[in-house]
């Protein structure tokens, strides 16, 4: 799910950071992938916009995303100054998408962050200490990977949410539930990538050199190995955010996404499904937003990977 679109291994030998200029003529193809380029800048700009909107949305002069105007229901874009028109209940679609950015990013960044924290730790430990610990950890992760991911996420969300009809008792907010569930689902993938990268770095002589200077294992792991593994973790995390945004959409369609009335990109689409025939813009506009965001994340993820890929920075 996350591990697709591997860049072809190239033979470039270059210290990470000993940059592009030196070998501009030698490998134009590898260079093209390492530079950002026009598409890269557009992708960057879009993501910055998305993040800024998610952060400052309460300050923006937007219509209330939860106020229904009967006359706006199912109206197309540019009706009465509402650029994206209204949703099925007559709420301003532009405002809902802007507010939805917040929930969608909270869930995706939170889930991938949690996955990075735990998956990264498991991966580092498994890749560095090897032995029986690695066997057990990778076994556990393989079992987790064997479940279809959406089904696992569904089961986790259902379990974590508890019985919504039951009165009393503190329920976790759906955003937290989704972060935990999707975080657990993304942990094994991030752990595998981290472990693979750790394996190659842990065999480098500087790790042995640090050991020969008397450093403790965990100190070596976090001071020597981790900084080298981070780029690989970061590039896969970008792809992970994209996947989780889509997964939240999928869960919303099944009624298990972010709880209404809080808008998220996923639940806007899920709601708009009912009006697909009369007002397709309710589904299409947020879909396009998701599409562009996911494309941007994937593209940048590949650029980061090409730039920092362990195999390409042979040193």
């Amino acid at each position, binding site marked *: 799910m996350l591990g697709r679109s591997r860049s072809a291994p190239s033979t470039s030998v270059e*210290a990470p950071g000993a940059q592009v200029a030196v070998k501009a003529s030698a490998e134009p193809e590898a260079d093209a992938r390492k530079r950002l380029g026009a598409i890269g800048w557009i992708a960057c700009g879009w993501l910055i916009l998305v993040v800024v909107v998610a952060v400052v949305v309460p300050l923006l002069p937007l219509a209330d995303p939860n106020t229904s105007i009967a006359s706006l229901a199912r109206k197309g874009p540019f009706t009465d100054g509402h650029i994206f028109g209204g949703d099925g209940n007559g709420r301003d679609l532009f405002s809902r998408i802007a507010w939805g950015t917040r929930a969608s990013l909270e869930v995706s960044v939170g889930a991938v962050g949690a996955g990075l924290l735990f998956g990264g730790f498991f991966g580092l430990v498994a890749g560095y200490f090897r032995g029986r610990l690695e066997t057990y950890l990778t076994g556990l992760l393989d079992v987790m990977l064997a479940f279809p991911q959406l089904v696992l996420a569904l089961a986790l969300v259902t379990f974590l949410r508890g019985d919504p009809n039951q009165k009393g008792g503190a329920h976790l907010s759906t955003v937290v539930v989704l972060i935990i569930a999707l975080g657990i689902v993304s942990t094994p993938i991030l752990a595998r990538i981290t472990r693979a990268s750790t394996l190659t770095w842990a065999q480098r*002589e*500087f790790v*042995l050199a640090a050991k020969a200077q*008397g450093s403790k294992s965990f100190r070596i792991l976090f001071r020597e190995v981790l900084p080298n593994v981070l780029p690989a973790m970061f590039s896969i995390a970008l792809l992970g955010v994209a996947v989780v945004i889509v997964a939240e959409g999928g869960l919303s369609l099944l009624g298990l996404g972010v709880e209404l009335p809080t808008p998220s990109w996923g639940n806007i689409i899920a709601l708009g499904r009912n009006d697909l025939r009369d007002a397709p813009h309710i589904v299409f506009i947020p879909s396009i937003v998701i599409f562009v965001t996911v494309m941007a994340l994937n593209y940048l993820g590949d650029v980061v990977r090409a730039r920092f890929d362990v195999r390409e920075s042979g*040193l």
Partner: protein
Amino acid sequence: MEGPLLAVSDLRTHFRTARGLVRAVDGVSCTLERGRTLGVVGESGSGKTVLSRSIMGLLPKQNVVRSGSVRFEGREISSADPRTMRGLWGTEMAMVFQDPMTSLNPVMRIGNQITESLRYHLEVAKDFANDTAIALLHSVGIPEPERRMREYPHQLSGGMRQRVTIAIALACGPKLLFADEPTTALDVTVQAQILDLLQLQQSERFMAMILVTHDLGVVAGRADDIAVMYAGKIVEKASTRTLFTEVSHPYTEALLKSIPRLADPSHTRLEAIGGRPPDLLKLARGCKFAPRCPYARPRCAEEEPVLSESGSPGHSFACFYAVGTPEGADALARNRAVGASPGAGV
């Protein structure tokens, strides 16, 4: 303190592999006094690197069979637990690795790599560690140490990087320094500088050093004693002067002959040692060098000679038909008489 700094006796390090047991180090004994240099010489695969890592206890636990004794300052450390070893690494013994391209962390500033062990072992303040690191860089001959402290390894040349790894190894003032082929990965012009630096630091700090190399020329002027290794065993051991004047083992002789000489006329054919180092998985019964040895007689394939002292004091070698002895001359003459190539007498 009495006794030698390091006493290794009958050290064996075997690796369990899918193809069988590899006897990388097979019964090595040696001692090293404070402030002295032991040169360990041998070709690739003779077990030099494994020997130094084995003494230092740096080999992984899995699939390694280690036996024998290593005494450091009288303490047995071959069976010490990891915590004890960590206390020795860096402060008592340190290692300079072969390839400075890979033995420095590419994403850590030079300064941090040096202060790392200082702050960890000696628990000194950051400023003090920084000043010490600058002084260290200066002492290993790096110009503008303050600026270099903030740079990353890729900004330094190979020779500079090796100087940095030496500074790192010396940071906590070890009593014993392992230099594992410290110049093999460097340009010829830089090699002598690095060796001189090691020698200078060693005498200034009264530090013992084990200099591992495949080049007899490297240890010739720099080691006090030399041990020649072949197939995981020491085949000849003597003080440097004795070794070069009274070469006894045919392998040592062959190594010496394979060094090109400037005085030779142009296009003189370089004498290489025929054949290959033995497969450590399938070692024959007798002398391991016999198949490549011009002196080898049938006895060599049957019986393994033991390392024993003879001739000058402190000079020991493992050979029945040693170079320069009547037996050796006789063996060589007989082999020549039948027109045999090396090893054919076996």
